[in-house]
């Protein structure tokens, strides 16, 4: 019974607690109690959905990664806007991207990053978690897309997770 009262995922619990405080417009006794209850209950309920504990090795690299992604999102949006407004037809490409990352959480972060940045959307992942299918809006060749993703996003994630 007592081990039921613990917080199996402290980071998730902390994020849930803080989000509840922000949502409830002003910290009060009630919102703190409710926040603690939610921070305890939601990880308990969703316990089965988490494949394993997230293995962050160096979380302090996260802010630098996030800054780079935000910068890329802005640059990428200008590129996509230019492409949409120009009269010529884009050259879309489907690329199979060979993954070096192994952790599921790291792969999903990479896939989300790909979807948000330069003219690429991640479409699917193979069953053995080795290949990621990426759709690029306008690219000259496969290698260009693969190189860009590898150097800009996968390398920092590898350093963070392995």
């Amino acid at each position, binding site marked *: 019974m007592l081990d039921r009262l613990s917080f199996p995922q402290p980071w998730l619990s902390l994020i849930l607690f803080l989000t509840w405080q922000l949502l409830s417009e002003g910290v009060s006794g009630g919102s703190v109690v409710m926040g603690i209850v939610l921070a305890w209950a939601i990880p308990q309920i969703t316990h089965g959905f988490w494949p394993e504990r997230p293995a962050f090795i160096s979380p302090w690299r996260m802010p630098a990664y996030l800054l780079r992604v935000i910068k890329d999102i802005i640059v990428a949006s200008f590129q996509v806007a230019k492409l949409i407004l120009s009269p010529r037809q884009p050259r879309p490409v489907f690329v199979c991207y060979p993954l070096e990352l192994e952790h599921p959480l790291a792969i999903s972060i990479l896939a989300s990053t790909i979807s948000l940045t330069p003219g690429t959307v991640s*479409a699917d992942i193979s069953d053995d978690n080795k290949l990621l299918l990426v759709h690029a809006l306008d690219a000259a060749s496969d290698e260009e897309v693969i190189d860009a993703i590898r150097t800009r996003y996968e390398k920092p994630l590898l350093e963070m997770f392995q």
Partner: protein
Amino acid sequence: MSQLAEYTICFLLLLGGAFTLVGAIGLARLPDFFTRLHGPTKATTLGVGAIMLSSVIYFSSQGESIGISEILITVFLFMTAPVSANILAKAAMHIGVKTAENTEGQPWEQ
């Protein structure tokens, strides 16, 4: 309201509106489903983000507290946009949506 805040708000509003419009133009004129997917996931999300930011600056320059709700909505949109794009792409591949003729490579189905 200070002059700087006013100019920033105007700039962000115009930027946001323009990106939202560009996303919708992309949705309307690009040739196939997979290329259309690019407009909403990037341009529209960034456009709404810019509009949210202008709202945060507007209300804080009016002397109210910093808008937490706007920031929460923006973070939520940025987190969900890639997920919905991904799941829509999967659904489209399952149905076998036609791709544009000049597309290189093939979507796979497993």
